[in-house]
């Protein structure tokens, strides 16, 4: 049956593609972490280790140029999969003036808002309503195709901003996908000090929207769920809440040893490394060979090396060249 095999080929390509983005994100973040520890990056470094499958699956389910993607602090994989150039994170972390933030802002606080990637502020929950606004603007302009995705962690679901935005999106029936990466901790705070509902997906009913739960360590499942959620949103079924269950396999930031994460929890299925799982999945299903995975690893490592080397040669901002103006108009504040 030719149709089945076309779908199978497409699925295989999606899996292979998403895996490669995960691998690229992993290697890039390992590099960034080592630059931080050798003092070459100042400020915060927040890593997405353990969350690459959930993040990349969302990124590949959206189309850059048509859709909107608002990542948060652990979405390197999703950003790259959506189409953020590899040089953007390298340059932003290293403070290059050639990066999209020109050294004015750093690390994860980057974006290309004109290309559907708003630049997050630190204040958790604040980006969800911004995506709502972008979607409403698309609707005003007659664009009924776009889907917008906003990423948050389990902790950010406790903000008033999150609640207000999801409720608003439901009222407006916006094509919004809310991706909640429940990595069991908000900094040191475990989920039982964050919310008391059995499962965050239960909240969907309260908002009057559709909810989906997914094992965030399983790439194939994440791809299936996000593809479905994005399609539902695009088809006019309103906001979709997708909750991925996983574990943050790193400190809150590169400065944090995460000693508060119990060893026993790391040994549960939650603690499985989504990258390893995805690699095994590809091999077991005959969708890639171990040699191929090794080759990809060498390729992405080289891509990372080049991007970082380029960013390290870039000029950094100098105070003398600054205009020190925050207004876009030529008004004199």
């Amino acid at each position, binding site marked *: 049956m030719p149709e089945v095999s076309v779908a199978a080929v497409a699925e295989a390509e999606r899996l292979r593609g998403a895996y490669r983005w995960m691998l690229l994100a992993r290697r890039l973040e390992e590099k960034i972490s080592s630059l931080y520890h050798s003092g070459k*990056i*100042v*400020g*915060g470094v927040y890593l997405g280790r353990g969350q690459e499958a959930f993040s990349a699956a969302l990124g590949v389910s959206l189309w850059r140029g048509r859709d909107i993607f608002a990542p948060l602090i652990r979405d390197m994989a999703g950003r790259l999969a959506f189409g953020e150039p590899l040089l953007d994170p390298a340059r932003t972390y290293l*403070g290059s003036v050639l990066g999209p*933030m020109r*050294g*004015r*802002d*750093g*690390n994860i*606080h980057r974006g290309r808002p004109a290309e559907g990637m708003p630049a997050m*502020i*630190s*204040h*958790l*929950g604040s980006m969800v309503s911004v995506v709502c606004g972008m979607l409403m603007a698309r609707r005003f302009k007659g664009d009924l195709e776009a889907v917008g995705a906003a990423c948050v962690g389990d*902790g*950010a679901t*406790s*903000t*008033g*901003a999150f609640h207000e935005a999801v409720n608003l999106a439901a009222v407006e029936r916006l094509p919004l996908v809310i991706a909640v990466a429940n990595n069991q901790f*908000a*900094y*040191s*705070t475990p989920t039982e*000090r*964050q*919310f008391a509902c059995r499962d965050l997906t239960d909240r969907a009913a309260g908002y009057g929207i559709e909810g989906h739960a997914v094992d965030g360590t399983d790439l194939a499942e994440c791809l299936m769920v996000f593809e479905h959620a994005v399609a539902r949103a695009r088809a006019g079924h309103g906001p979709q809440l997708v909750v991925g269950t996983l574990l943050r396999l790193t400190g809150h930031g590169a400065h944090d040893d995460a000693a*508060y994460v119990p060893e026993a929890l790391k040994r549960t299925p939650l603690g499985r490394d989504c990258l390893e799982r995805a690699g095994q999945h590809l091999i077991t299903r005959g969708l890639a060979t171990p040699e191929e995975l090794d080759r990809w690893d060498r390729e992405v490592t080289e891509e990372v090396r080049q991007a970082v080397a380029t960013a390290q040669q870039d000029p*950094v*901002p*100098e*105070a003398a060249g*600054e205009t*020190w*103006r*925050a207004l876009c108009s030529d008004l004199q*504040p």
Partner: protein
Amino acid sequence: MALTYLEAIREAQHRALSTDPSVFIYGQDVAVFGGAFKATKNLSREYPGRVLDAPISEDAILGVAIGAALEGMRPIVEMQFADFSSLAFNQIVNQAATHFWRTGVPCPLVVRLPSGGTPGSGPFHSQMMESIYAHYPGLVVLTPATVGDAYSMLLEAIALDDPVIFCEHKFLYYHLKEEALPQESLPVGKARIARMGRHASVVTYSAMVHEALRAAADLALEGYEIEIIDLRSVKPIDSDTVLASVARTGRLLCVGESFPWGGVCAEVVARVVADGFNLLDAPPQRLNARDTPIPYHPNLWAAHRPTASAIAESLRRLLRF
């Protein structure tokens, strides 16, 4: 045994918890983890049930603190960073600040704001909020610059019946050390002469006190004696000490790390001009951060905030007038 500014803040909370059963601490990651900066390290173990982790819900955290204060508790709220207090702004300025005036029932609470810039912290982990909060009637706003003040003023803040915004500077957390905690201290509302001088007065607070002291040391080499006033508390503001200093020197420079439009420095200048115009030998000056968000890159950050050399430069201009 030397104590840091941060340890002084921890010690003050320790003492408050041990002496007053109505004190409790509420904030993100403050319990077992001891807070993002470790200002509450071990306190949850020593005072079980009185140091509680909060969800990421700043508005509700302040609402809870206000409610508890109305019932006779003395909550200490730790904001993870001062910048995130913007989410609690409504509760602070509309509920806590107005409460006593509206009802006659006091609302004693302390909001600890880890404030100010450090290299690489960027626009959302560097802000100084004292001018914003000082604008609102009903709040006390404190800005300690020394280890001793961090300790004694926090204790005093907890004891006060008014809501207090306690701006502690992150840049001072680990840098600043003193040999012992003070036995006695100036009361809230009194400024301190941090260095005596006679050619110009620098009025400042928080981390800028130390930049100003360095600038004064440089100018001493050029033969100028600069007086440094550490406001300690920006609301109430000690106009008397400021005016007495200007009466001695005839020249005023006010230095603050917050944005330049309005704010504490503008307030100081306005008061000196209104009440001490005849004392001035030169137009009073102020030096603040630049009028842009706080930059991430250390090269830009260093030029965005006032530094010792920028203060010295402003002083030279003022002295030449």
